[in-house]
């Protein structure tokens, strides 16, 4: 049986700057996300992974391409009223637990912000109950509702950010580097929480990160981005165990492991940038595992 694709991105382009001299942050990428899965989007800073996430949730007006969310093309929606409907279904978790919470608001104001915007839970008691429920869902106490953002630790703040994203009961969440600003022990807490929420609420995640070990751990499939394009996409295990694209290989070889013996023997595989000239084709090397490159490149890589 064909699995349902909750999100399908086709030929997405996001350019900034002037038309004559555009900065191509995202340059013609296509992928889809199955309902209930986690797609990891990895790459180094400036590769366009965060821009991709923000374009999909329409923080930017996309330059070109289609974003089919539950079959509807949201890239072409202009009116805020129509966008509001889709805001209920797609939400985002941000990177910086300090910058992502308004310092002048209490936890309950932050979590309940969406209720004001959408005119929900107007009854005070009902609203308080809903906020408390969300706080508890992310492992905080309802007693924390009246506290200001700066009173919480980084991990707790990120939990509040997650509670905010859950407040409208979305089905799809874009997590934009949600753990990279957190300490190691806190990262694990947040990742476990995200996994638990996914199971309980049948959420679909687009998980954007640069930390490959965490992405591998949380994702079902992984897309590797490099300079605005996807270079390789496939099941998480395959990407890690049998990377095909030389950039993916290089990236993987650079991840340090908490294992001194293997670290001492590790050989880094360098990658030299290759200009793409010619049409990029997508080659399926095994079911669901794609490598992107020109015909010449693919041949050079032995694919």
């Amino acid at each position, binding site marked *: 049986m064909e699995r349902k694709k909750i999100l399908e991105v086709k030929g997405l382009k996001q350019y900034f700057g002037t038309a004559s001299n555009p900065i191509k942050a995202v340059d013609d990428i296509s992928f889809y996300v199955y309902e209930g899965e986690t797609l990891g989007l990895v790459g180094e800073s400036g590769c366009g992974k965060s821009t991709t996430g923000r374009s999909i949730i329409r923080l930017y007006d996309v330059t070109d391409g289609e974003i089919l969310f539950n079959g509807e093309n949201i890239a072409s929606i202009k009116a805020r009223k129509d966008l509001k409907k889709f805001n209920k279904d797609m939400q985002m978790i941000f990177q910086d637990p300090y910058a992502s919470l308004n310092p002048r608001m209490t936890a309950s104001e932050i979590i309940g912000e969406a209720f004001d915007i959408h005119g929900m839970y107007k009854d005070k008691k009902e609203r308080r109950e809903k906020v408390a429920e969300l706080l508890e869902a992310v492992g905080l106490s309802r007693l924390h509702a009246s506290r200001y953002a700066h009173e919480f630790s980084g991990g707790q703040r990120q939990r509040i950010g997650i509670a905010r994203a859950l407040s409208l009961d979305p089905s799809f969440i874009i997590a934009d580097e949600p753990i990279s600003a957190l300490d190691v*022990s806190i990262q694990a807490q947040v990742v*476990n929480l995200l996994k638990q929420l996914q199971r309980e609420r049948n959420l679909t995640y687009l998980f954007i990160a*640069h930390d490959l070990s965490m992405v591998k751990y*949380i994702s079902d499939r992984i897309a590797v981005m490099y300079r605005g394009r996807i270079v390789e996409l496939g099941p*998480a295990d395959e990407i890690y165990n049998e990377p095909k694209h030389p950039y993916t290989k290089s990236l993987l070889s650079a991840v340090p492991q908490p294992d*001194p013996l293997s*670290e001492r023997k590790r050989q880094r595989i360098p990658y030299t940038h290759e200009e793409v000239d010619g049409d990029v084709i997508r080659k399926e090397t095994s079911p669901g595992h794609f490598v992107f490159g020109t015909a010449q490149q693919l041949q050079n890589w032995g694919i």
Partner: protein
Amino acid sequence: MRPKLVEVKDLHIHFKTYAGIVQAVRGVSFELYEGETLAIVGESGSGKSVTSNALMKLIPQPPGIYAGGEILFNGRDLVPLNDKEMAKIRGNDIAMIFQDPMTSLNPTMKIGKQITEVMLQHNAASRSDAKARAVELLHQVGIPMPEKRYNQYPHELSGGMRQRVVIAIALAADPKLLIADEPTTALDVTIQAQILELMKDIQKKRNTSVIFITHDLGVVANVADRVAVMYAGQIVEYGTVNEIFYNPKHPYTWGLLGSMPDLNSSADDLLRTIPGSPPNLISPPKGDAFAPRNEHALAIDYEQEPPMFKVSETHYAKTWLLHPDAPKIPVPLAVQQRIDSYVQEGDDVWNAKKF
């Protein structure tokens, strides 16, 4: 035994804030030998950066207070030195590399000048020599076309290249000790790998001692000879890199190792986590500061601070679990399994002398 370069004894650093006195470093002691790398690993707020800044006497006073202890550098205590005396040591004997290469370089000064300035300041070279040596340094830190780069400004370089320049500046006066405070945290993994290789390479050639501050256990495994694990302003475990990674004794170290997924862990097993968050250091908890987050905490942990227990000649841990009367609590299964898999993959030499 190699000669000792640095010896820190029972260092206490406090900060005065409007909310009260923050005890950022609470009795840290360690030593550093010539030519070795000591990694200080810990989470934010553990006091690792404060400790390293304290070595350079970079703690602003006020609000900082050197509340006790000694920092012996080549046998000389740095704590009572004034700014002028410290200025001679900074850059000359001890150099520092910070996290963000952009803010540690002067954006309005050419790269070459920033390097030669250090040399001239410390009379390490004559003016004509300085340029030749700066170009040579740029070459050594792996910057292509050093003559051209010499006349460029920091913004003309990429992040990785800038960090190389920062390292070149740090090396300019040929310091005996290099303190690197999260030098690769702001960089991408592929660049990080290059910078780590570079630092190890330089250390081998120059026999520099390095104190490497980081929160990333992968980086620690890559660079360190010895490791100090910090928590709540104290060193809780201290040993060689193999001892810390393959025979950890402190439950906090177990937690750190367990909470990091490696490329082999599968999505089905939940990560082990350390519940809660670190304590507030304005009023540190009584007894063992880690106890409230420790599933193996003993009754005494809430009463009395544990001493450093000796595990081997080089390995110490600050936990009551090592007391002869304490119950024998094994390393958590998931952590032990991972260690076993590493050690099996590891070389036979290690297997032969197993703990």
